[in-house]
């Protein structure tokens, strides 16, 4: 038992976040970015550019649901930057006064209908989703579900889903496997899913535009690097990468 604890100890300390000597001191500097899962591919690409431009800097990306991430930061996780998929979760950070600089919006995302390849149910519009088919959407409790409710209300249709999932990934899983006939996910998810689903745009999506804010975290170890990351995301390079992935301009 005791030897096992000793072996574990260095790892535990490294996770603890009080390794001040590590921060912004030239070699071996780490920038930890907490970002919404929908940003995975874009932020990975930007991290490579950032590391190429900053020698000796290691960008550690932590992806997850925005609500989980903000919860972890509030509970002391060692994040330098937080990029949220909605303003609601960024507000939780500012409510705790944990932001470095004030949050800035850097991208938007809208909903799109996703159907299995070949579109077996012949869906062409949002109105079709109210018909007799296996519809899979996000539960109203999660951000993509709240957006779904908004567009449904704006179009005055009643959706009768076969399943209300906890995340966009779960919705996509049901569509790619052909289990569901249609789902509502974000434009960027459809692009990221490649050939496994087909996307169908609909005009009512303009009624629920999701805004992504980004902020540095107060007292982060990475110092100025955190702000440089934010600048990269807001700058032309970042915007170009985001736009290629289907995100809209803020």
């Amino acid at each position: 038992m005791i030897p096992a604890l000793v072996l574990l100890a260095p790892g535990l300390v490294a996770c603890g976040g009080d390794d001040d000597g590590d921060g912004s001191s030239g070699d071996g500097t780490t920038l930890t970015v907490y970002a919404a899962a929908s940003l995975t591919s874009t932020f990975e690409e930007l991290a490579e550019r950032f590391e190429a431009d900053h020698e000796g800097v290691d960008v550690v990306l932590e992806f997850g649901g925005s609500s989980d991430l903000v919860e972890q930061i509030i509970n002391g996780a060692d994040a330098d930057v937080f990029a949220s998929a909605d303003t609601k979760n960024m507000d939780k950070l500012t409510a705790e006064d944990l932001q470095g600089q004030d949050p800035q919006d850097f991208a938007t995302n809208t909903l799109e209908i996703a159907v299995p390849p070949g579109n077996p149910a012949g869906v062409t519009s949002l109105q079709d989703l109210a018909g007799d088919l296996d519809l899979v959407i996000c539960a109203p409790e999660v951000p993509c579900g709240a957006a779904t409710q908004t567009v449904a209300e704006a179009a005055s249709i009643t959706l009768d889903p076969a399943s209300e999932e906890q995340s966009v990934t779960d919705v996509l899983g049901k569509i790619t496997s052909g289990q569901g006939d249609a789902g509502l996910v974000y434009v960027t998810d459809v692009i990221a899913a490649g050939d496994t689903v087909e996307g169908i745009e609909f005009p009512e999506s303009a009624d629920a535009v999701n805004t992504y804010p980004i902020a540095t975290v107060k007292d982060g170890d990475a110092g100025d690097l955190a702000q440089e990351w934010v600048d990269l995301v807001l700058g032309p390079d970042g915007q170009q990468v985001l736009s290629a992935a289907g995100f809209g301009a803020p």
Partner: protein
Amino acid sequence: MPAVVGTLFVVVPLAALVAQVEWSDFWGLITSESSLSALALSLRTSAVSALVCVLLGVPMALVLARTRFPGQAVLRSLVLLPMVLPPVVGGLALLYTFGKRGLIGETFEVVGEEVAFSTLAVVMAQVFVSMPFLVVSLEGALRVAGERYEVVAASLGARPTTVLLRVTLPLAVPGLISGAVLAFARSLGEFGATITFAGSREGVTRTLPLEIYLQRFDDPDAAIALSLVLVVVAVLVIGLTRQRSGAL
């Protein structure tokens, strides 16, 4: 000393959960419409799943404990696999078998029975992950009971069916009960296979663990209150059987 550490490791997080409960509106949180519907669905499906596990698992345990055939060790490993498999993987396996585009999913549709997004899918997911618990515990009980009484009964002229019903199974009853309870408890806690295979819809497929997972975003207090309900139900189930059979 390690025993103390081990016990604390299990007990302290449970205590932390209890400490988080908002007792002032606890009752309101667990009696909301969605909570009650999730609890009822969980109890119903878990009971059916435990029953199915008994019906299918007893013959399996008998075959594994009382017969010898080539490849038996491999078969046993395969049957026990869901125990160590991540439930999500189990859910995917079920999806690719019984899903709309699965191996035999189309056959089901021909019969007019669609498994997708139905309570049946929830039960299937639960049976898949729970079955090994019943088989393992019953097979163990059968092995411990041994074959002596069966041999005696047979030598006294009892037919194989009589031996099975009057000697083998009665001796294994404690193992069967604890196995069924474990299967029920495992079904009650089933999450990964259910969400992957069955989806999540109130009253149809959203069991208590799925409801907890969903509520933790929007209403953490409700999630914690429901977690406590699940813990209490689990403790009750295990406590009751322990008292009855003393075999768990």
